[in-house]
């Protein structure tokens, strides 16, 4: 957690410095042109943000000054304060103090005195307000003065060593006075005199000057340029692309010379090392902590729980784990959806929870952990779990499943039906769930970045949804193989095994080919046949799908890649296996963006393009084709998105 806090602090500091700089600039503009409404608005906004940020960081002093500035500009906005040179002097001073305070957060040093200027500015605001309601205040002022005299006789006498409590009380009273009446101003100075480091000088003007003098060494006119820079992600994307190309080019150079120049091994090793370090540095820049996303859920959970009238505690775990910024962006909507689902479908209404002895508050846990090149995000609730019977009923109603099939399926398989397009288990449509984006959209988003989703649900005890995500989108392991039409790659995240069997071991069942692998029956498909289809609707017909099978001889060894996706296994028969390789996948650009079964392309060491198979799309297509009920409409849906 420590490193996480440090990072937040760094971000705060860099922003705060920028904000004070911006304030300086805007004050200057405003000083030249007192009617600059835009500048006034901007200052108001900046001080407001700064106040909120500082308060969030627990930096009360900074927040306090920003707060006063905000108040003043609120008055300026409504033309209650007229701008004059005197005010600007104070504003610039206040900003200097802000700078000094922020600096102090960065490198702790002598404490910065800020109360003088704060008080002075506060008084300005109060004066205004008081003028409006002066009459009302007279009485209050008298009472408070009397009380003050009574309360503070003792501390004023014991000036040598005022206790902390006394000081606190004093400052609290300062506030009381300020809200009471103008007459309080004199008393403030008296109370301020209690602070050991401050003089009894009753003139705030002078004490401010002194503060400024004391703070001098810290801020002076030294220009501080922030140590953090903001970069648009687009630039990083570009950089990453270039690094990807560099790696491809490096592989190519090494492959070209490898055969001849064995003696150059050293140079190549160095090149290899530098490029891979470069790659990891670039990837590292793109990593952000998951709390960037997780922290947004405090509010979301609160809002959803309020609407659903449920009580939910949010727990965050492992927020310091890092993940590629773009991946976080892609999954953010999915995560929101999953969290909403967990609250509105998972966690029970409080009456029901109490009846079941679970405790009024439901718990929702978001946790992240890193494992090798993956980040695993879990959304856990302690609600009622997913009821397979309800899912099955719904699936049958929606025509995703027949009654006979439902009775054959395991509970687990049934639960996974919630990922099917067109499935939405919300029985009534509420503001939160059932807005048309279903779990299938979540699934698609996760698939698109090569991640996986799994569900573990215990009826009555809760549900855990696990997202396994690549921590970086840049490189992925892939298996290269050859088909009639050239080389293809398939991401290793989908491959389960590679086997070589002879045709004898393959059985034809109807139009399907099956074999056994590790005691499990697996459907086989010749990718060549699939890719040679003239129309996708021919996929069920024997003469197309079994063309290669019928042609091959009985003893021929067949290379099969077994892929696994969404708990479905299938074997792809390929011509030849090539190698395993780290690839940089690029999406195909327009006009080929909607090409089926291909998710992108990579450039190989020899400069040739190698297409990357979209395994999820192929598996979905093949298994959909075999579904009984909604055969036709499924096909249409498949082609239209």
């Amino acid at each position, binding site marked *: 957690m420590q490193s996480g806090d440090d990072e937040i602090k760094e971000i705060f500091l860099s922003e705060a410095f920028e904000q004070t700089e911006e304030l300086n600039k805007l004050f200057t503009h405003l000083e030249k042109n007192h009617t600059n409404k835009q500048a006034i608005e901007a200052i108001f906004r900046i001080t407001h943000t700064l106040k909120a940020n500082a308060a969030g960081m627990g930096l009360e002093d900074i927040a306090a000054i920003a707060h006063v500035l905000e108040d003043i500009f609120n008055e300026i906005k409504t033309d209650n304060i007229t701008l004059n040179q005197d005010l600007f002097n104070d504003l610039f001073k206040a900003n200097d103090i802000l700078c000094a305070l922020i600096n102090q957060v960065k490198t702790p040093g002598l404490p910065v005195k800020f109360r003088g200027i704060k008080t002075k500015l506060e008084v300005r605001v109060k004066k205004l307000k008081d003028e409006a309601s002066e009459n009302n205040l007279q009485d209050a002022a008298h009472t408070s003065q009397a009380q003050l005299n009574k309360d503070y006789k003792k501390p004023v006498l014991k000036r040598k060593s005022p206790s902390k409590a006394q000081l606190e009380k004093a400052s609290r009273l300062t506030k009381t006075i300020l809200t009471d009446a103008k007459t309080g101003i004199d008393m403030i100075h008296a109370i301020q005199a209690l602070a050991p480091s401050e003089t009894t000088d009753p003139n705030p003007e002078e004490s401010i000057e002194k503060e400024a003098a004391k703070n001098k060494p810290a801020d002076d006119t030294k220009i501080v340029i922030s140590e953090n820079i903001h970069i648009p992600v687009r630039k990083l994307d570009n950089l990453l692309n270039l690094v990807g190309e560099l790696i491809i080019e490096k592989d190519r150079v090494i492959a070209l010379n490898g055969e001849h120049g064995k003696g150059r091994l050293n140079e190549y090793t160095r090149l290899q090392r530098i490029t891979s370090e470069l790659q990891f540095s670039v990837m590292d820049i793109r990593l952000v902590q998951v709390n960037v996303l997780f922290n947004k859920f405090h509010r979301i959970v609160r809002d959803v729980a309020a609407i659903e009238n449920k009580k939910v505690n949010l727990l965050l775990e492992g927020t310091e784990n890092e993940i590629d910024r773009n991946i976080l962006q892609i999954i953010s909507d999915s995560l929101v959806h999953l969290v909403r689902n967990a609250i509105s479908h998972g966690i029970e209404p409080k009456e029901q929870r109490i009846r079941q002895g679970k405790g009024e508050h439901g718990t929702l846990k978001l946790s992240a952990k890193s494992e090798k090149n993956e980040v695993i995000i879990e959304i856990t609730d302690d609600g009622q779990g997913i009821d397979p019977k309800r899912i099955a009923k719904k699936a049958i109603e929606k025509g995703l499943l027949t009654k006979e099939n439902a009775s054959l399926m395991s509970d687990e398989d049934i639960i996974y039906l919630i990922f099917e397009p067109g499935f939405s288990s919300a029985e009534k449509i509420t503001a939160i769930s059932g807005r048309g984006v279903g779990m299938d959209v979540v699934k698609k988003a996760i698939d698109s970045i090569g991640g996986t989703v799994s569900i573990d649900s215990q009826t009555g005890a809760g549900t855990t949804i696990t997202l396994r995500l690549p921590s970086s989108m840049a490189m992925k392991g892939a298996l290269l193989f050859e088909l009639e039409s050239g080389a293809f790659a398939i991401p290793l995240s989908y491959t389960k095994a590679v086997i070589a069997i002879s045709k004898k071991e393959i059985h034809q069942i109807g139009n399907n080919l099956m074999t056994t692998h590790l005691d499990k029956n697996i459907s086989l498909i010749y990718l060549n046949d699939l890719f040679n289809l003239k*129309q996708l609707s021919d996929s069920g017909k024997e003469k197309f799908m079994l063309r290669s099978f019928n042609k091959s001889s009985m003893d021929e060894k067949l290379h099969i890649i077994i892929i696994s996706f969404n708990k479905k296994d299938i074997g792809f028969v390929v011509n030849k296996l090539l190698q395993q390789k780290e690839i940089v996948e690029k999406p*195909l650009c327009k006009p080929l963006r909607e090409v089926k079964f291909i998710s992108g392309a990579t450039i190989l060491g020899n*400069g040739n393009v190698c297409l990357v198979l979209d395994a999820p799309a192929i598996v979905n297509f093949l298994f959909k084709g075999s579904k009984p009920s909604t055969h036709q409409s499924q096909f249409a849906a498949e082609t239209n998105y």
Partner: protein
Amino acid sequence: MESVTENKILPVNSEKKQKSFQIIVFKLGSEEYALSIEQIKEVVSTPNIARIPLTQSYIKGVGNIRGNVLAIIDLAERFGIASEAEINHGTHKYTLVVASEEYKIGILVKEVPNTLRVTDADIDTSPHMIQDSSLGNNYIRGIVKSGNRMIILMDVFKIITKEDKEFILKAD
């Protein structure tokens, strides 16, 4: 990048001050076609092409052009004016890289194309032609007459935009 030779056939008539611009002329089948020069980014020798499954046959596939993976298209085959031998053996040595804000694709050509400077007056923009309805009717910008030559000036992106979806085989 192959050098592109320029033959200025038409002297610019300075008196009339007509707007002149350059076009890139290439052969498809036995006819001459042209694109306006700003649509063309470069001419390269055709890279190895990876065929994309389940696309129309005139989409030859994708190739690596300076680190970019671009779709490569045979317009001759699309127009139905390519000979069998051309389709099967891929005699197209060069690729024109054409780019708009939205698209960047390669177009196969047999020979290094020429540039030609023409003026607006050289272009007959309302040719009385029976348009091929399958290609849409506005991809031809006009006919350029240059001596005995008749050059078809087209807007390649009109073709691509229209066919964007048709590139990919449908289920029906």
